[in-house]
């Protein structure tokens, strides 16, 4: 069963506009949520995270929103830049155990000039 879901395999956005990537999860035990960015032939790199006790975290052009009641989080990128074109993974983590990341399937974001 897929505990973390990214239902949009791809997203295309015009440069300068806002990109919104969505993620849903099913397990209310997750304590922490993260977004990773991945370029081809490279490993995922950490982008931004949010604790389950917060509803928003902002870092420059990147903002993550968490709606615990809906078990939904989103990543906003504004303004979008060509270098943002990559695959974005949403991930969740338990406080107990190994802190292993549970990933979604990923969304390929393409920023068009």
């Amino acid at each position, binding site marked *: 069963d897929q505990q*973390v879901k*990214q239902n949009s395999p791809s997203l295309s956005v015009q440069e300068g506009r806002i990109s919104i990537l969505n993620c849903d999860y099913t397990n209310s035990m997750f*304590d*922490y949520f993260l977004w*990773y960015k991945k370029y081809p*032939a*490279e*490993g*995922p*790199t*950490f982008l931004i*995270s949010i*604790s389950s006790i917060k509803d928003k975290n902002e870092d420059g052009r990147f903002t993550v929103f968490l709606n615990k009641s809906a078990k939904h989080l989103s990543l906003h990128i504004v303004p979008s830049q060509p270098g943002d074109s990559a695959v974005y*993974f949403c*991930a969740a*983590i338990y*406080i107990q*155990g*190994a*802190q*292993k*990341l*549970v*990933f*979604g*399937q*990923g969304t390929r974001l393409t920023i068009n000039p």
Partner: protein
Amino acid sequence: GAGVSQSPRYKVAKRGQDVALRCDPISGHVSLFWYQQALGQGPEFLTYFQNEAQLDKSGLPSDRFFAERPEGSVSTLKIQRTQQEDSAVYLCASSATAGLGNEQFFGPGTRLTVL
């Protein structure tokens, strides 16, 4: 380099061969993770080490998969009698400590293709 390195970057194996994949974590990092990423999917957890102790191997898909980290630094993921469904990118990640929220730094992965 200061990042996580993995070797080989690409491996082609014939079905039934044994393979060994190496991970060099960031120096001093306590935690080490292995993930498997199938084509078009997100990475899936395989196993976790804290120093040399393998604390969680719940994600290993079968007893053909074995991982070790004997001195608490370099780790090797071994797959015996490879099968076509083992074809995937194998990612290694390390983090400085074992606490919640500690960023996991990923290596570039090893792409395994089993013919």
